[in-house]
């Protein structure tokens, strides 16, 4: 039997931030991954506006459902289950997906699974088209505009531990803020990447948050990007005050280097400390060329196997949510109760709400 015909057929709904994601999987096979983003509507505000994101989800959901079913070439009655992100994320945005998922579940009389968004990012790596399965345990570094988390995943559906996370801004947010500072549009990640080309990443030594020995005791795997953002701002202001030209390429390259350095240093340290020879990257910041480059270099040097799912599965999407539910079902887990709510701070230890 080919893999495409085995495993539960699950439709996943993801609305935790500014992307309306509908994915359909059969077991570990990706059948559809439709993403509608309200990113353009947030551009003029320089960051995701929760209320705008939530409103956009209401409008995007039904067209995305239609598109996903067409892409997967399946009908609603064929589905074995519905899955939905119940947290963490923006609560107003999460509630739209939850309301829709519950109604769909009752209308179709299909079981409903409430899934943890961050664990979903790890689940994205289970959707492989080469017939291999996700290898565990793994360290997972999840970096986006909404989160910066380091996880120790021993089992995808029963044993996930949060090693550390950002104590202030998410890394993606830092990219957006520094881009603004340099007069670049939102979203900042691709813009920083673009102008950093030709810049010298060693031109300016920006601080690496929570990397000093005194911080490492308490925050070994935590991140902080607020101080970095301020350091970049101060540096740029000093240049401007002195009437000098701001070397945008060098600032962008040096800033990006600082973020990348701290992300990968902590991720690799977790692999070494815990004796886990695998690192999985997830989240939209994976789109950043330098992050990928440094990850490849340092993992190779440390003998760590690096996994980076395709970008369409790294950014927020419904398929990764469906992937976790499919695995829960395959392992015999029952559905969630119909009464779960949105939990904006759902801990990673709660894989299914």
């Amino acid at each position, binding site marked *: 039997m080919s893999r495409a015909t085995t495993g539960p057929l699950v439709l996943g709904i993801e609305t935790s931030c500014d992307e309306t994601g509908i994915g359909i999987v059969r077991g570990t096979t990706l059948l559809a991954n439709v993403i509608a983003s309200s990113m353009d509507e947030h551009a*003029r*505000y*320089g960051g995701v*506006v929760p*209320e*705008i994101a*939530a*409103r956009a*989800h*209401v*409008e995007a*959901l*039904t067209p995305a*459902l*239609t598109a996903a079913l067409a892409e997967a070439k399946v009908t*609603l009655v064929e589905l074995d289950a519905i899955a939905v992100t119940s947290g963490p994320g923006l*609560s*107003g945005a*999460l*509630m*739209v*997906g*939850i*309301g*829709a*998922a*519950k*109604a*769909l*579940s*009752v*209308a*179709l*009389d299909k079981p*409903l699974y409430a899934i943890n968004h961050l664990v979903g990012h790890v689940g994205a790596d289970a959707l492989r088209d080469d017939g291999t399965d996700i290898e565990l345990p793994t360290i997972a570094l999840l970096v986006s505009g909404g989160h910066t988390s380091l996880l120790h995943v021993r089992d995808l559906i029963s044993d996930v531990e949060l090693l550390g996370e950002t104590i202030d801004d998410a890394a993606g947010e830092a990219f957006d*803020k520094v881009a*603004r*500072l340099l007069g670049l549009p939102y979203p900042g990640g691709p813009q920083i990447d673009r102008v950093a080309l030709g810049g010298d990443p060693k031109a300016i030594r920006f601080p690496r948050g929570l990397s000093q020995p005194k911080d490492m005791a308490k925050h070994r795997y935590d991140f902080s990007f607020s101080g970095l953002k*301020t350091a970049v*701002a*101060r540096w740029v*202001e*000093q240049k401007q005050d002195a009437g000098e030209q701001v070397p945008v390429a060098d600032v962008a390259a040096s800033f990006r280097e600082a973020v990348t350095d701290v992300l990968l240093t902590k991720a690799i340290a977790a692999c070494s400390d815990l004796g886990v020879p695998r690192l999985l990257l997830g989240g939209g910041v994976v789109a950043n060329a330098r992050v990928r480059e440094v990850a490849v270099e340092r993992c190779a040097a440390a003998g760590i196997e690096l996994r980076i799912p395709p970008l369409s599965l790294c950014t927020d999407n419904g398929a990764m949510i469906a992937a976790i539910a499919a695995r829960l079902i395959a392992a015999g887990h029952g559905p969630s109760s*119909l*009464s*779960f*709510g*949105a939990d904006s701070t759902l801990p990673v230890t709660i894989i299914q709400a």
Partner: protein
Amino acid sequence: MLLAIDTSAGTSVAVVDRDRGILSEVTESDTRRHAEVIGEAILFAIERSGIAVDMLSGVTAGMGPGPFTGLRVGIAAAQAFAFGASKPLLRVVSHDAVAWGHYAAGHVGPVLVVTDARRREIYFSAYSGVDSVGLPIRLQGPGLCRPADLCEQVDGYSRYERIDAAEVSAASAGLLAEGLFLHQRAFAAPEALYLRAPDVTVSAGPKRVS
């Protein structure tokens, strides 16, 4: 036969029939638990009505006015249910449902429907009465204002009987939709009636840090 959902105030879900009236109605008055209760409310409304989903002819969504977070849980649910059951979605103005219920109970004359908009504001709609087929005639609204400004906002304020509705009945929304459908009247527009722009401020640019 319609499944009707309204979350413009609390959470209300009903199954109604043009001939047999209200077959079931489930109401949760808590205005902060829409996402938690919506699934069971739909499930129980269908179970208690004794009908099967495929017997429905459509799904009604109360489009507000209502405070945004809760309102759109019901709209998203109604849309998804209609999509899942392959039934048409019939949208109504939630205040029209309140007026419909008021007149259907035998009241006559001009009525002003007022609901809580939070943040020390209210939503309002003004009705002159019903037309020849018993459907409410909305003269003004839905609008949004501060409570103290209502008498200026509504033309001829003093001639209205004011109804401050703490709940919006999905059964009324559903029966109103049956009437609108029967008499080929217009349904509400696809946009949710938040009547408020999202809270955002366009920053003037990065602030100095030094």
